[in-house]
């Protein structure tokens, strides 16, 4: 099929302001991904088009982009998902919102990772290890409690789709809360109180207005809003 792409371009080395690049691709398969299309533009038409990507199958989190107005991973979005027509599609691609643009589709991820690092996203347990030298035991039920939030690939699709984050970039955002959830609800972890203190701060969970953009954006199908609600509940009740 034929695809017309509109891609948001901006190279601060030469451009005064962002502009739209228009590209037409022929012989596109319905099963091609948006990443395939961007690669074809870059490799066949204009090598200056700049984006991040690595794994090409939705597991590394490099290529969260705003595609036809919604956040998704370019490599996990098939052309068929974006058109009802078998012969034609029109696709618009922009960088995710709320972050500084470095070049074209590449944004500055540092503030995002700063928020991530602020929630103590690591396992804490200073108790003596099991005397037999083996693993700590955990029941299947306890393990299941935080399974959903272990899937996060830190792609930022959720945080950059959140109106509260757009309103104030100091808000730690859904991704950081998902990471906090993964540890708060792990029965083996001991930093429960400290971590709750961080996410309960002025720029923490209470900024969430339960708008569900994050859950819809998440390419790993994590129930982000639910994870946030569980953290709010833990803060209110002091229990998990």
């Amino acid at each position, binding site marked *: 099929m034929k695809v017309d792409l509109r891609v948001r371009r901006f*190279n*601060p*080395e*030469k451009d005064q302001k962002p502009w739209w690049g228009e590209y037409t691709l022929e012989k596109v398969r319905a*099963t091609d991904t948006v990443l395939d299309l961007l690669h074809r533009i*870059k*490799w*066949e038409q*204009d*090598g*200056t088009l*700049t*984006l991040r*990507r*690595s*794994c*090409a*199958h*939705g*597991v*590394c*989190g*490099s290529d969260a982009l705003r595609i036809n107005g919604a956040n998704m991973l370019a490599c*996990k979005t*098939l052309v068929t998902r974006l058109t009802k027509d078998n012969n034609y599609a029109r696709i618009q691609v922009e960088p995710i919102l709320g972050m500084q643009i*470095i*070049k074209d589709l*590449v944004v500055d*991820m540092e503030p995002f*990772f700063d928020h991530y*690092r602020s929630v*103590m*996203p*690591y*396992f*804490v*347990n200073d108790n003596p*290890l099991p005397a037999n*030298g*083996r*693993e*700590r*035991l*955990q*029941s*299947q039920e306890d*393990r299941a409690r*935080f*399974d959903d939030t*272990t*899937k996060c*690939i*830190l792609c930022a699709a959720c945080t950059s789709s959140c109106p509260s984050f757009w309103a104030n970039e100091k808000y730690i955002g859904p991704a950081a809360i998902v990471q906090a959830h993964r*540890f708060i609800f*792990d029965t*083996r*972890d001991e930093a429960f109180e400290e971590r709750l203190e961080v996410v309960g701060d002025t720029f923490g969970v209470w900024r969430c207005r339960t708008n569900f953009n994050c859950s819809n954006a998440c390419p790993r*199908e994590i129930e982000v809003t639910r994870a946030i609600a569980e953290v709010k509940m833990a803060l209110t009740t002091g229990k998990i």
Partner: protein
Amino acid sequence: MAEVKTHSFDAIIVGAGGAGLMAALYASREVNVAVISKLYPTRSHTGAAQGGIGAALGNIEEDRWEWHAYDTVKGSDYLADQDAVDVLCKEAIDTVIELEHMGLPFDRFPNGKISQRRFGGHTNNETGKPVQRACHAADRTGHMILQTLYQQCIKNKVNFFDEFHVVDLIRVGDTVRGVVAVEISTGDFHVFHSKAVLFATGGWGRCWEVTSNAHSLTGDGAAICVRRGIPMEDMEFFQFHPTGIYRLGILITEGVRGEGGVLLNSKGERFMEKYAPSIKDLASRDVVSRAIFLEIQAGRGINGENYVHLDITPETVNKYLAEAGESRRITREYVEAKLPDIADFTRTYLGVDPVKEPMPIQPTAHYAMGGIPTDVDGRVVLDQNNKVLAGLYAAGECACVSVHGANRLGTNSLVDLVVFGRRSGVHMAQYCKEAEKLPLPKNPVDEVMAEFDRIRNGSGGAKPYELRKQMQKTMTDNVGVFRTDETISKAVDDLRLLRAEYNRNIQIDDKGARFNTDLLEAWELGCLLELAEITAVSALNRTESRGGHARDDYPKRNDVDWLKHTLCFSENGKLRLDYKPVVIGRYQPKERVY
């Protein structure tokens, strides 16, 4: 000219996948370390590993590390060094336990212990039956390892230089002095002055068309070492994983077969019964990939196409479980719980629901058994006498210890990362405490900067993308699952022409400084071409079939002439081959039967 900044550390670790991060955790406890990575650490391809990490924990049935060692040696077609394999399998046990102590959320058995499943080539040595050895977290074990190690690095305040692309090693005689890197966001060159350098840059599956490897897996660390006079070991051994998604190459973990999935041809036959009567679909990867290839060649691909089916639907699996007299049965819910990502991949990319219908699969270029030669402490060795290059280390997929020999067993790469990542980190820290820091040579960036200028300013009209496509085609057609003198020779010729074209006529579009991925991709292509040629030349000379190196014209293994490791040196633009002996221990080579 771009500005050059200089940094100073005791040790530099290049690469933030499982191997680099494990080394960083250990080394940074003792000395001043920086980790440099062209990707954000959590984007590393270790995160794509699915099925599991092998360790003889014996959590559900009897198992012993010696059995794991024997399986590894047999899987390697007797080319692995058995002293190194002993280290791998013995230390696998406490490293996996250590990962759990770091918080890694493994799946659990009902008794609360780490859950383990079957995987290709892993057996109970007394009964010959598959054993449950692969420790896993659903089908995203690598993701959990990568996340956990990165989390611990944050906790321990490890220094990271994210999105810095290392492009050269500073070597002076038989000493190393650091590395040169490009800061991707600005295009600036940086010199990292150090006493020791560890490469943990992963594989180079992008030499082939259909691969499970990320776009970023372009073998940079290995190619840089080649350019600085270090030989490559056993490069003819590259693993084709039997089950990649048809045309896309995305991996479908062997865990699918570990959970009971079977391979079927166009007649609905479970053809592995023919090729590996004892463990069938769970034979080692080289054996299964060849079987699929032969089925397709005999016209038994599905609809006459180049693929076969992998079936994990409960109906099919339970039928074969019953036939085998096993009491276990699986349900759709079980498949969803144990293989959620696989189900997501096939639904997303193929519109195939794996709990209801079989998946179309074909072999996919997957794993480099060969690479930078090292000893069991990760120290890089320079020749057949294992002369050490003090201060230089390598670990993970880019290294060749060698524990995988001619064919790697599933789950053994993740073990390799953490076991040898840890050992390298420990050894490197010790080295840094004793070694003196030698001064930088004059103008350490000049050579590589000139190469970058050449690529940036080239006007010969040869597009990196075109050259890459041609390289991938010739490697796939001629240095794939099966090869012959004729096909490999063709590849060698093609690759020489492509390299000449690359060296003379490369041309790119982006002339800018900031985030110039056009330029960096072109430079990465140079690395791929370098390694592709070494692979082909090493393969041409080895006139036998062993593990992942299967030659139609020499179909048998030949221990008399070829029980030895290849070493390929690049000298003044020419490749030279040499060989070194294999370390044999408890297990004498014998014919491999599964």
